[in-house]
């Protein structure tokens, strides 16, 4: 035995085979059961209806037969009632009773004697002519030929007697009857106020006869049939009378016909004794309507409580005369068969149906098993093949030869497997290729990064170094590749720098916060400004590692999804640059000093040579007047020199001040012009001034003057001593623009982009340092302004120096103003 699919690892799971068998069973059993049930129900219904209709027909037929029996008995009895002798005798008695002269004593006497059972009286009534006639009729003497009274009818006759118009006994066959009957219902009914009427009395127990009887009372009409002159009363034993007819009708084991009256009292039944009521009172109204029919009742009337089919029919003629009229009672036949017997065929059918059903189910199960096996085996093969494909182990084609969709499916599986294999092979090649490409890319990136002279480090979010390029390795003397080393273990930073870096990294690329810092830091340090150590470290993107200073930049590198971004850190060694810049500033200072010294020398030379010349004249001069004149000139020259020296010292004095003060920009410009004139030959230069007034700016006046001096010197140099110099200030919004325009040859386009570069100059060797504009721009930017150069070739250059206007009015007057006024004097 192979293992069943239900013994799979998951116990609750039903295998395909079980499901197929169950489906087949369900598909088979449900219609089978429904069909059998319906057939059974329909069969029962039909049996019920057919039985009911048969019972009804039988009941009707039986009723007709019994009715005829009664009618025949009535007609037999009626023969007696029509006998002329009897009629004449009773007419005579009627007339005698009507005779007013007659005495009632004789009748009373006879009654008394009859009650006493006096033999003479007995004989007078049982032995008279009429009684003999009754006997003769009873014996069938007057019956028509061939119409002899049946023995049973004769035997069932218990009493037969005649009464007169007053109900008194006239003649009787037996000695049982009472003498007077005028109060008896049957007598009243039959006599019917002398009109006369057939009266059939319902079944009752007769004490004298000691049996259940029914009676037929017929009026004896006079010869004219005008009125009743007496009553003929016939007492019949019900059981004896009806049983030959009812008991003969039997069908099956229990099926029979019985006769009941409208009260449900049994008149004749093969099973129940005569005179007993039906066991179920509720049944009576169902089976005693005035028309034939059948009913499905909840009891059978014979003591059984099972559902019964009962046919019934009234006896029409008999019922019409029962108790005088049909309203007072009626007789009915009752046809019944026990339901066990009635439904035996259907029970039989059910049994057989169940047997056949069981056989069908067994067939279904076995066929289902075979069919399921045929379906499931290839499916399971396919499942195993799919598993093999999943593991990539399927080598041989799947062998399924069912010749249906499953075979097609297996073929498709095989083809799919082949295609998958081919696809995988191609995919592997591609992956190899791509991997090589990636490796090459990585190597080239590494080489590029290694070739970059600046140190570059890649760190992850936890500051663990992932990559170090060659420059960094060299710079930080790292020999072996460090794995999982922290950034700060490689870079020997002080605490402040570490904190600054960590804080910046944590900003998570919040460029809005970092950008201003970086931008500000990209501006090189003002070389004219002394370095202050109390400047906050966070504002510099510079790191001091060992003895060297590095400018650093960092950026985020996206990594694989789900991981935190890496950080790239680029360091630039600015130690040399920083030193060079300091040297530059120094050189500029020295240059300026040289120019200044030359200017001073020039200024001082003139009076000095004057003094020397005058002194030489004085050596040979005798004329006192001339000597005095020369002396006065010497004093004048000396004073002029003193003034020059004082001015120079005035300039250097203010070098120390580093607090911006509010001064009118025009004053600074004028001062600068004066200074420039001392150093540059501007005798033939026409100066135009167009000032907007006294525009206050917050600056270090000496530095601003230095900037103006540089610009003015440039302008003067450009004009080579002759031309027009235009100075103007224009106020707009919050800015004052100072323009210094010359009429020189201008700057060529190729030089215009370089004019702010340090050491760029168009002058001859020794004439300029190449730092003038650079310094001027740095000064302007230091005070929140800028310098712009506008140039039209051959038509001159215009330098615009923009500065923010100082809106605070507190420092309009100051030492500088005094100094200006002083210089002018």
């Amino acid at each position, binding site marked *: 035995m192979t293992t069943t699919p239900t013994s799979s690892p998951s116990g609750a799971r039903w295998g395909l085979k079980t499901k197929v068998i169950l489906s087949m069973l369900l598909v088979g059993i449900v219609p089978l059961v429904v069909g059998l049930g319906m057939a059974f129900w329909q069969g029962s219904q039909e049996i019920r209806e057919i039985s009911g209709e048969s019972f009804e027909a039988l009941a009707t037929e039986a009723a007709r037969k019994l009715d005829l029996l009664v009618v025949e008995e009535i007609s037999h009895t009626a023969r007696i009632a029509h006998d002329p002798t009897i009629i004449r005798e009773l007419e005579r008695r009627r007339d005698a009773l009507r005779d007013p002269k007659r005495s009632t004593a004789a009748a009373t006497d006879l009654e008394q004697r009859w009650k006493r059972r006096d033999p003479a009286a007995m004989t007078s009534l049982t032995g008279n002519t009429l009684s003999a006639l009754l006997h003769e009729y009873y014996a069938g003497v007057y019956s028509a030929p061939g119409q002899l009274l049946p023995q049973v009818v004769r035997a069932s006759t218990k009493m037969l007697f005649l009464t007169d118009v007053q109900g008194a006994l006239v003649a009787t066959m037996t000695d049982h009857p009472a003498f007077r009957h005028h109060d008896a219902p049957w007598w009243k009914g039959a006599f019917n106020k002398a009109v006369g009427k057939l009266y059939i009395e319902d079944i009752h127990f007769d004490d004298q006869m000691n049996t259940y009887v029914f009676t037929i009372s017929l009026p004896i009409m006079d*010869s004219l049939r005008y009125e009743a002159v007496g009553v003929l009363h016939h007492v019949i034993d019900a059981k004896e009378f009806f049983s030959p007819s009812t008991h003969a009708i039997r069908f099956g084991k229990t099926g029979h016909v019985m006769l009941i009256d409208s009260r449900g009292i049994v008149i004749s039944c093969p099973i129940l004794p005569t005179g007993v009521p039906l066991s179920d009172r509720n049944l009576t109204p169902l089976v005693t309507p005035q028309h034939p029919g059948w009913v499905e009742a909840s009891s059978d009337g014979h003591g059984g409580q099972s559902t019964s089919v009962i046919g019934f029919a009234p006896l029409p003629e008999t019922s019409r005369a029962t108790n005088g009229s049909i309203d007072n009672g009626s007789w009915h036949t009752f046809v019944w068969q026990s339901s066990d017997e009635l439904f035996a065929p259907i029970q039989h059918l059910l049994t057989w149906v169940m047997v056949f059903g069981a056989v069908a189910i067994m067939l279904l199960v076995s066929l289902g098993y075979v069919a399921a096996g045929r379906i499931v085996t290839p499916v399971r093969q396919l499942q195993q093949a799919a598993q093999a494909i999943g593991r990539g182990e399927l080598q041989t084609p799947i062998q399924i030869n069912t010749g249906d969709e499953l075979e097609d499916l297996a073929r498709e599986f095989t083809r799919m497997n082949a295609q998958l294999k081919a696809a995988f092979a191609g995919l592997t090649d591609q992956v190899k290729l791509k991997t090589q490409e990636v490796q090459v890319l990585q190597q080239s990136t590494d080489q590029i990064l290694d070739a970059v002279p600046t140190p570059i480090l890649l760190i992850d979010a936890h500051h663990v170094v992932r990559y170090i390029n060659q420059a960094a390795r060299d710079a930080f003397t790292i020999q072996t590749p460090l794995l999982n080393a922290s950034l700060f273990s490689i870079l020997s930073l002080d605490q402040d720098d570490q904190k600054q870096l960590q804080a910046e990294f944590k900003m998570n690329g919040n460029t809005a916060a970092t950008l201003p810092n970086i931008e500000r830091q990209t501006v090189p340090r003002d070389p004219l400004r002394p370095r202050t150590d109390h400047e906050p470290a966070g504002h510099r993107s510079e790191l001091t590692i060992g003895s060297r200073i590095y400018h650093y930049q960092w950026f985020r590198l996206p990594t694989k999804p789900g991981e935190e971004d890496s950080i790239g850190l680029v360091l630039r060694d600015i130690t040399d640059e920083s030193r060079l810049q300091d040297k530059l500033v120094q050189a500029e200072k020295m240059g300026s000093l040289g120019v200044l010294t030359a200017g001073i020398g020039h200024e001082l030379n003139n009076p000095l040579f004057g003094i020397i010349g005058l002194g030489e004249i004085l050596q040979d001069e005798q004329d006192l007047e001339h000597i005095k004149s020369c002396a006065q000139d010497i004093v004048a020259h000396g004073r002029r020199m003193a003034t020059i020296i004082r001015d120079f010292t005035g300039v250097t004095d203010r070098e120390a001040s580093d607090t911006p003060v509010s001064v009118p920009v025009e004053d600074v410009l004028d001062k600068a012009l004066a200074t420039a004139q001392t150093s540059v030959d501007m005798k033939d230069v026409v100066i135009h001034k167009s000032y907007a007034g006294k525009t206050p700016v917050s600056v270090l006046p000496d530095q601003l003057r230095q900037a103006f001096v540089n610009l003015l010197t440039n302008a003067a140099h450009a004009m080579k001593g002759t031309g027009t110099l235009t100075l103007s200030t224009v106020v707009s919004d919050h800015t004052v623009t100072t323009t210094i325009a010359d009429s020189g040859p201008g700057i060529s386009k190729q030089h215009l982009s370089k004019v702010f570069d340090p050491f760029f100059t168009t002058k001859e060797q020794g004439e300029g340092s190449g730092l003038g504009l650079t310094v001027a721009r740095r000064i302007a930017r230091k005070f929140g302004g800028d310098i712009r150069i506008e140039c039209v070739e051959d038509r001159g250059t215009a330098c615009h120096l923009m500065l923010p206007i100082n809106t605070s009015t507190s420092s309009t007057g100051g030492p500088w103003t005094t100094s200006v006024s002083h210089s002018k004097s």
Partner: protein
Amino acid sequence: MDHLRFAFQVITIAFLLGEFWTVATLHAAKENPTPVGIAPEKVADYIHAILEADRTFYTSHIVNRLQEKGILASTEQWEQENTLPLPAQFLQHSGRLVAESGSGIRYRLIGFSPIYQRNAPATEFERKALDVLRRKPDRPVTGIVSSGKKQYFQAIYSDRAVSSACVTCHNSHPLSPKQNFKLNDVMGGIAITIPLE
């Protein structure tokens, strides 16, 4: 007021009764010496006219109409079947009611070929009368008959098949001895019996 009205009514009634008695007495006194009566033939004619009219009306306007409209048929077993009585039954049952009323007058249907033997002619007179009526159906046969000491006037009128119902029933009833009746045939007679005392 009420007492007065009551007294007035009593007096009025008493007066009316007295007058009635006086008239009745006078009438009796007047009839006694010279008895003036209606001839029994007349009485029988009256009765027969009524019977005929009643039965004709019943037949044509009740039985036929209801039967034509399919509402209710008339059958012999009308009591059991909840139908209308046949016209012949109508006459017989009304005759029974008349007899039971005790007025003395009786009538019944008789015939030579009755479905039920009780409707056969009972006496020689009836037999002869039917025989006469077969030939001369237009006039009744009348006569005085007696039962014991009692004397009766009997008038027997011919009875025709007035409607198809009569013919159909008699021709198809299993107990009918004659089954070739036609419409308007004399099927028998109506015997009216009036006691003479």
